[in-house]
């Protein structure tokens, strides 16, 4: 898995020395750069100075609320965030996704699972890959305009800031305009293989897209087909 040309930089926010050692050893041996922080403010500073590609965030830190930290990271950057938590409840997962996490992993985990999730998330959030498979470079739907190369989205001319996962989901819907896409399809295409059952991911992210792209009073951009999936209205 060392085929990634640019070394990927991962920020590990975790206070358990064993887990830090474990993740660091596994990532380092596969050519990743790793940074470690066990407290919130230092993590935010590292995010600023080191510009990591990905954050692995433990929710149970001694001094800070993990959800709050997740929200702060998301406000500061569009970096990929994988939450690693000992709390396995659905509610915690949805909360973390709502706070802007791209993926959620429950402790204990095997190292293959960790690596698979890291790679899937990176694939989704890497702009280089996106450009390669995109046929048109700009898609316009009503007031909304998305540039697949620069990864920019405009609504009535004003730029709308999307996280990489949000962008990837919107791209999948926009490229298949008019077509009904099932949740499973979206999960496989946007999040990657192995994510097909994580239906809350789609639900949370569709909600996030709607909040950003459907101003109150305007016709809906994304249509829900109950129990089937989602689509963007055809021309």
């Amino acid at each position, binding site marked *: *898995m060392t085929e990634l040309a640019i070394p990927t930089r991962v920020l590990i926010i975790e206070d*358990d*020395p*064993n*887990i830090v*050692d*474990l*993740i660091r*050893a*596994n990532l380092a*041996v*596969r050519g990743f750069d790793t940074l470690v922080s066990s407290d919130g403010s230092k993590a935010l500073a590292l995010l600023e100075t080191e510009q990591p590609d990905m954050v692995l965030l433990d929710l*149970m830190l*001694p001094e800070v609320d993990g959800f709050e930290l997740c929200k702060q990271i998301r406000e500061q950057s569009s970096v990929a965030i994988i939450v690693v938590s*000992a*709390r*396995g409840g659905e509610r915690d997962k949805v909360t973390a996704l709502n706070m802007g996490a791209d993926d959620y992993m429950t*402790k*204990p*985990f*095997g*190292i*293959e699972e*960790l690596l698979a999730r890291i790679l899937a998330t990176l694939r989704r959030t890497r702009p280089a890959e996106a450009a390669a498979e995109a046929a048109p470079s700009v898609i316009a739907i009503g007031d909304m305009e998305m540039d697949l190369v620069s990864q920019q989205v405009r609504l009535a001319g004003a730029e709308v800031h999307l996280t990489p996962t949000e962008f990837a989901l919107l791209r999948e819907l926009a490229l298949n305009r008019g077509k009904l896409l099932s949740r499973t399809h979206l999960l496989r295409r946007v999040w990657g293989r192995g994510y097909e059952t994580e239906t809350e991911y789609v639900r949370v992210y569709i909600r996030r897209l709607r909040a950003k792209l459907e101003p109150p009073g305007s016709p809906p951009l994304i249509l829900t087909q109950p129990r089937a999936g989602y689509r963007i209205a055809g021309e």
Partner: protein
Amino acid sequence: MVHVTNGAERDTASATPELAVSALTVRFGGLIALDGVHLALRAGETVALAGENGAGKTTLIRAIAGDLTPVAGSIRVAGQAVPPTPSAAAKLGVRVVWQDLALAENLDVAANVMLGNERRRHLFSDVALHRDTSRLLDRLGIPLRDTTRPVRMLSGGQRQMVAVARAMARNPKLLLLDEPTAALGVQEAALVERLITRLRARGTTILLSCHDTELIFRLADRIVVLRHGRVVAEVAPSEVHPDDVVALISGQAVDSSARRQLTRLHGLTGRLVSSDPSSSLSLILSALGAALGSERLAIHLLEDGQLVRAASLGMPDSLLDAWARLPVGAAGGPAGLAAERQVPVIEENLRTGSGSWQVFGSLARPAKVASSWSVPVLGPGGLLGVITVFRAMPGKPRRDDLDLAALYAGYAASAIERDRLLDEVTARNRLLETIREVLQTLAGPIPVEAGLRIALHALREGLDADEVALLAAVEDVTTCRGYSSAADGAIAADTGSGILRLGIPGTVREAPAALPAAMVDAARAALDRSDPDGVAVAGVEVLALSPGTLRTGGGQPGSNQPGARQPAHGPGSQYLSVSFSSPDGRTVLLAGWRDGAIPDGATDLLEDAANSLRLALERERALLAQQEAMALRQSRELQRTFLRRLSHELRTPLTAITGYATSLLQQDVTWDADSRQRFLSRIAAESARLGRLVNDLLDFSTIESGILRLNSDWCDIPLVLDAAVAVLPREAAEQVRIVEAAGLPTIWADHDRLEQVFVNLIGNALGHNPPGTKVTVTVAADIPGTIIVRVADDGGGLPPELSRAVTEAAGQRDPRWHDVLAAGTIRPRRQAPGAGLGLSIASGIVAAHGGRLELEPAERGTCFLVTLPVERSVE
């Protein structure tokens, strides 16, 4: 509570206060209205006086305004003593806006504002008068445009503002406001509040008497709370909650909504009393007695040209009979004379025997009466009666005592007048109406314990019944929820007497002894006849009682079993009963009349009462259920916290183990020898940690399910402690000191389990505190048969709120106090892993030994106290 230091001491430290009241005492006769009050106002400060009616707020304002003469103390305005006359106080710059405003109704706004402040030009020019008034009103921001309107045409709020403007016309040093918003509606009060806010912003020094706590909080820089003529507290609104001030005002800390309802009930009880003339007279009499410091008083009312004693206080029976009826005139003694002449008649010395009491002199002596004064009670239509005050000392009454007696004679007159104005039917209707209100209040949202008592008492009064009882039966067990009887209470007006609260269940056959036998019989009959499944209130039934037998209205034979109690009442007793189902079970409300004379309307009233009581009982139950649900929720919350922590504690080592193991299994990577070694050793360490956790969990569940088995033998506590310390890492063991008393007995216990207790306690003490914390373990055998071990640390101690929660739980003998502690402790530091079970396990083991684990209050750090019996008593 902060008392203001007195003015003299303060002067040296700071500028002279604008107002300095020092040790001020004011008396009205025997009544101490103000008792050593200290108060200081700095220039520009707004201070509010808070207190109940009669707490001394208005008296203090009157004293500062020079309106009354204090007994002791001083009042200074800007350093100058205020003489006790209103004009002198005014000269020093004290202005008062009284509650009744004292405006000239027929004059216009301008004339009222400038009254007494007129300048020379005003006397010659109306234009100047109105112009100057408008300017003043503008300056004060008072929204009154037309200064020519007569004051009588203004609203309450506008009048208040005119009065304030008048007080402000002379730029007072000190503005006294007596209840400025008491008589106003919400909007008008807001106008006045804005005006006071503006005055305050202009730097006016304001002393405000007010009983609207919320208003006080918005307006005042400081709040001075008066109670019974004393300053009980001085607080800043920013530092306290309004409820605290309400509690200070009333002198009791109670839930404010419950308090409001209680106040309402008291008010209604007051109305009940006042609808009964004899009891309201005795009330007035006892108030007068208290005010005068006299214990012997009598009031005679004029009836058919004779003075008939209506109420008396502290008089021996022998005198009462002699004074039951007195003729008007000299033959009636001083009372007769006072009635005839309609002026107070004072008998300075009865013992010299020359006075008009001669007739009764022999009777007066044994009652230790030396002097008397009789004050006529005069109503609008002439003489109503005479109040006579008896004193043990010869001599004249003081002027203010006589004034006080005259004042109370006035109250008595209005009470008598009021009563005479109402014909009997109206009075009765009012009584019934009030009782309904009492019952409705009782059924209101906040049940009040005292409410049931008051309700039953009120109901008995309203029904004119001899006794009223509320009983509830679940199967054979009948509980008396309340009982009110006229016979037991010598004075019917005393709501406290004749009422039993019997919480103890008993069958009707073995009813609580204090319940009269006849009532028990009636209750049994009523319960026998009530429909066990009935939900709503059933109709009222009549039960007639004859000696030994109870016959119900329907003619069915009552239960007449051998050994049934002999009813206390003669034939002709009648009972009315209503049954209904309440959360307490089948419930009956019973009222009994000994002479069998059930008044008209009793049936309706009893049914109304039953409906209200049913609601009240349901609400009471709902409240209990709510409290239980809350406790359950708390306990569930505790459990959830516990499980969350436990899950975290189990997942942490498991994550490391899984992670390292799967890393070693990866095909794409070849780990170097160092990494492999590290991974394996960490897997081993984390597995051991997991093993300890699982053991703890097993111990915990063994203890929780009560199947902990002890392998007891005679053991030596010092040896147990040594073993416990030996388990600790070396650097931790060095922090522990063991202090043993000499001659400790060996105890019958499980050595290993006790070791576990002390490992947990010492481990917690070291693990939850900063490094370097010392732990002292003290063993003593002060009490024969027990050994006491204290495990104390000098660390940071528990956070205060946690300590409070734990103490609370422990105080309520809640066995879960250590769970509260475990749940509240923040995530344990790395050096003290564990699911927070250590304390629970320690407590369980100690309990299995017949001992106790407690948290002992400590000045610093935390101290656990383990008490163990030397030998467990045989179960």
